[in-house]
């Protein structure tokens, strides 16, 4: 079990950390979130380890954990965003806040496509759905994000 998990970790952890970093914007927090996700996977490895989409599973756990971190951070600062935050930080926080409002499938598709940089066929394989379904989720998800962010480009 440990060998299988270790191999999985070494292959997937850099991706999960990268996804978390793009959401939380800080290396220590990104490492913390990604490690938390893998710990959850390890605790349920008898189930998660046999899933065909186990990397997607841990990426989704990472994403949700990262969003939670940002939410807590926003609550602590009584924000929408901190006064001294950079435009980039504000954009990221606004994006994450909007992302958290999406249905899970859309959220997962958007994160895997645009945060983890997977291609639509890879997202489809990860989520176990067709490419067309992935595209529909992306269309709806990005439409919703656009409505919330009210910006020219994502």
């Amino acid at each position, binding site marked *: 079990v*440990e060998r299988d998990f*270790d191999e999985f*970790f*070494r292959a997937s*952890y*850099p991706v999960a*950390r990268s996804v978390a970093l793009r959401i939380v914007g800080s*290396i220590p927090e990104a*490492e*913390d979130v*990604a*490690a*938390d996700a*893998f*710990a*959850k996977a*390890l*605790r*349920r490895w008898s*189930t*998660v380890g*046999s*899933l*065909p*989409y186990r990397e997607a*599973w841990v990426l*989704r*756990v990472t*994403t*949700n954990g990262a969003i*939670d971190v940002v939410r807590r951070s926003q609550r602590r600062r009584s924000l929408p965003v901190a006064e001294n935050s950079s435009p980039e930080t504000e954009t990221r926080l606004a994006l994450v806040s909007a992302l958290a*409002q*999406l*249905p*899970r*499938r*859309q959220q997962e598709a958007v994160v895997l*496509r*645009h945060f983890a940089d997977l291609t639509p*066929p890879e997202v*489809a*394989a990860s989520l*176990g*759905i*067709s*490419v*067309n*379904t992935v*595209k*529909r989720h*992306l*269309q*709806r*998800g*990005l*439409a*919703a994000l*656009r*409505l919330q962010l009210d910006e020219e480009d*994502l």
Partner: protein
Amino acid sequence: MYRTDDEMLAVVYSRADAGRRRTRGRAVGAATAMTAVLVAVVLVVSTRSRDARVIATTPTATTSPEASTSSTSAPPPTTTSTVTSTVPRTKSLFEAPPVPITWKTIRPDGTMSRSTVSGIAAGPNGFVAVGRGVNGSGAQSRVWFSPDGEHWTEPDEALFAPLGYPIGYPFAIAATSERYLLTAIGPNPGLDGLGDTSVFESLDGQSWHRLANPPNTVGILAAGDRFYAPNPYGMLTSTDGQQWLPTNVTDREVTRMYGEPGRYFAQGFTRPNDEAVGRPVLQQSFDGITFTPVAGETLYGSKVFTPSGVVATEAKPCFGHNVDGPWVLRDDCGPDHGYFRYDEQEDRWNKLAQIEPGPGFPFEFMLAYAHQLVRIAEGTDARLRVWTSTNAIDWTPAGVDVEMGTNRNPAMSGLPGYAVGPLGIVAVVEVTLSPGRDEGPHTMVVVGRHQSNPD
């Protein structure tokens, strides 16, 4: 500076141990350096667990129709439930009165429950679902057959196993009243996804053979008596799966087909002049080969054929699509969800009723069965519910309420497919409950069948 993978792996084992209260020897080596981290992690995990419980038991405050039905009496998703739905007959779109539908929510036997279903179709002999599951040491593509939507078997595992994970990604499945076709994408699809496609045919949903000359396609769709094979450059059509003819759809990416014999709708995207932002487009055809754009407001949701005309659901066009680059969105998005009926003479969609905007964008679809409309929707509260209506205005809850997991739960959930045919309606639901309530994600099936012959 990143910590090394070995350091992080030690952290992971330590956290897993903290969560399970187990002792693992390998955590000891990292204990000294990670003591402070562990304390913080335990606190964070504890806080998160409390947060998750609070959210899971707090009713969602919303005025949307999705939340108007009771969620507290929903059946546990690991058990079977049966309810019967009826709808009043007022200003009906149908010529005959609706036949009550009996609904069952079941957890299918066999491998389907523990697999990822990616598509389902209703054909001449029953339902066929496709997806991926685990068998022994590895995962593989799977095909299931059911004569009634309730009892599922795998007809020919050996035929499809070599195509499965990790070398392929999920099948697509479509059916007419005469046959079933499914596609499998192999390990080398290429940039346009056309490099490694196999197409299989079955007349009964159980015995399959691979077509020697498959169409150039990335998937398979069906409408009425026709199959459609879309690809990034156009779309082919066939009635028998053997002879494929090109349609005049050449610059559009079709994602859904709707139809009945003699009337077809193709729904997808177009990018005139290679503009970066794709535009949703709906086209119609009377021969299934030559399509013309439907003018007026283009609707992106489900299309349903009724005796009173074509009815559609969902929103105004607002989605952009760029095949080769980042996604960009158009400016005319809006939460203007509703039900619409197509006016043939005026070539436009007339609104029948508004769908009150709810939180987020629930995934939903609409179909016609037993002289009534059926709306199946996943709310942002992660519950699947069903309504019926004869007029697209007055909707009656069908008594189906499936808990799919919480929004904060990161595991799989969704509506991977649905199918409707003479034998009934089948909707596939992915369910994942909070840790401790179930052993993990699984598949549920919602089956609706008329109580008596509607014809």
